[in-house]
């Protein structure tokens, strides 16, 4: 009986309040139902790989910051691990612990933004500002150690740029204590809010086998029920010294792998990171020079290496080919957001326009990383 309506092509273009930056979604809609979504990217392509070929190994570190600007500590760490594996540098114990602390603090900050903007897309303004208030406290911690709020250039190849501030440990413990009630606050405001559940349960269901085939990793894959976490399965640095459990979606509010699961995995992961930081702070060795293992000139042998790190968004991989001189021959990055954006077309079949925003918010992409 329904009369065929004409297809309308709607551009959720580069300037849109909830496309998390400069992403253009070309929707083909019929009334309210979306039949086809084609993401257009490249509006923030800043030629990262061309820069790597023209610069020395340690000059590339500030550029890795600017790729995933919400988790730049992890970008540095991934790159530093790759070059250390290439040159065979062994980093002192204290540096490993500080890197874990910084990485997990960065995960909390990045998840805070992800959960906050997800609430914003659904229409709840206030949790976004509460989470940003706590993120500011993490930024003051980072600012105390390396002087920058957002792009740190802190984890160098073979060590760190600065040692941590004397009362960094005390202030971090204070922050961790004050952060736990915030997560319960977000739970009351958002997670168990009837309208929020109505808007996100059973929406954008990603079955497990499709997720693996699409190469999804991190909270997007764990939301579909597989406990695959690089910190546990492909352990790098000293993550085997801490015990934390890997959160997976259980389909509490709807089918397994829907938007609510991916959101809830991120909220719980913040608490896991708090646990890791507490253990790391207890076992932090007091002495040790953080810059002892930083080589004067990095000239790795000919060869190639691929290392992967558990970025807050998923698996961040660095593939470096070196031909023996001081400039890397080729650096290729595997950004998790680039891979997650591909599933937008298949994931949004048969949804409404308001669900597109919910799904896009739940796979949590950062355009600096997608376009490199």
């Amino acid at each position: 009986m329904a009369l065929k309506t004409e297809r309308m092509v709607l551009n959720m273009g580069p300037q849109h309040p909830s496309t998390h930056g400069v992403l253009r979604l070309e929707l083909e809609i019929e009334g309210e139902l979306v039949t086809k979504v084609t993401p257009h990217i490249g509006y923030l392509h800043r030629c990262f790989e061309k820069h790597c070929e023209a610069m020395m190994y340690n000059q590339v570190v500030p550029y890795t910051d600017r790729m995933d600007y919400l988790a730049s500590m992890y970008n540095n760490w991934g790159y530093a691990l790759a070059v250390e594996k290439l040159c065979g540098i062994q980093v002192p114990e204290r540096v490993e612990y500080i890197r874990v602390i910084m990485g997990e603090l960065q995960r909390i900050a990045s998840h805070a933004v992800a959960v906050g903007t997800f609430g914003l897309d659904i229409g709840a303004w206030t949790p976004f500002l509460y989470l940003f208030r706590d993120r500011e406290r993490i930024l003051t911690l980072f600012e105390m150690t390396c002087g920058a709020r957002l792009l740190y250039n802190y984890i160098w190849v073979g060590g760190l740029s600065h040692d941590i501030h004397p009362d960094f440990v005390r202030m971090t413990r204070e922050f961790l204590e004050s952060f736990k009630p915030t997560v319960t606050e977000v739970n009351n405001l958002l997670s168990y809010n009837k309208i929020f559940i109505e808007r996100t349960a059973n929406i954008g269901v990603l079955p497990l086998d499709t997720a693996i085939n699409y190469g999804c990793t991190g909270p997007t894959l764990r939301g579909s029920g597989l406990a695959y976490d690089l910190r546990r399965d492909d352990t790098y640095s000293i993550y085997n010294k801490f015990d934390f459990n890997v959160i997976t979606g259980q389909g509490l509010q709807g089918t397994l792998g829907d938007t609510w699961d991916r959101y809830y995995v991120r909220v719980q992961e913040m608490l896991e990171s708090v646990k890791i930081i507490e253990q790391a702070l207890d076992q932090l060795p007091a002495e040790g020079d953080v810059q002892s293992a930083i080589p004067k000139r990095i000239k790795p042998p000919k060869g190639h290496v691929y290392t992967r790190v558990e970025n807050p968004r998923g698996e961040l991989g660095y593939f470096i080919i070196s031909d023996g001189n001081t400039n890397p021959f080729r650096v290729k990055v595997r950004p998790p957001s680039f891979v997650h954006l591909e599933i937008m077309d298949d994931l949004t079949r048969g949804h409404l326009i308001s669900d597109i925003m919910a799904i896009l918010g739940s796979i949590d992409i950062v355009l600096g990383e997608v376009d490199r």
Partner: protein
Amino acid sequence: MKTREEIFEILKAQFPDAVLGIDASLPTEPLISIDPLKIKDICVFLRDSEELKFDSLMLLSGVDDANGTKTKDEQGHDVITGGTLSVYYHLDSVYLKHRVTLKVSAPRENPDVESVSYVWRSADWHEREAFDLLGINFLNHPNLIRILMPYDWEGYPLRKDYKNPEFYLGMKVN
């Protein structure tokens, strides 16, 4: 959990002509090089075989080997002719927790490589990016168009002998 050498043996047994050899001399990760036009069948085998089960493609990266002959054109930019463009495939098995790296090289003039986007869906955009930045042509890819650069951009920026255009749509580039 299989090491790369065992995987190479299995592949060698399965596809004697397609698998060209293993390059284990490098300090870090041994590399299995494969004939560019047979890559798809090997990948289907890698994904579907019970003992290997490589169900996710971590990374597909195009590399300009720049091993051709370098000549200088009039403005002093060197132009590389001949040589190869190669594509590296990093595969990972989520359940069996082992990884393998494949390498495919194609001539620089008409670099044709079989597309694997019908084996792993994530290869679709990686191949479009390799085409966009390096000009590697993937045969029967769903829609091989530029992804990062503007759709009407000429030249392949990541090639070693790439020269920036002077103007783009009236805007000075550098």
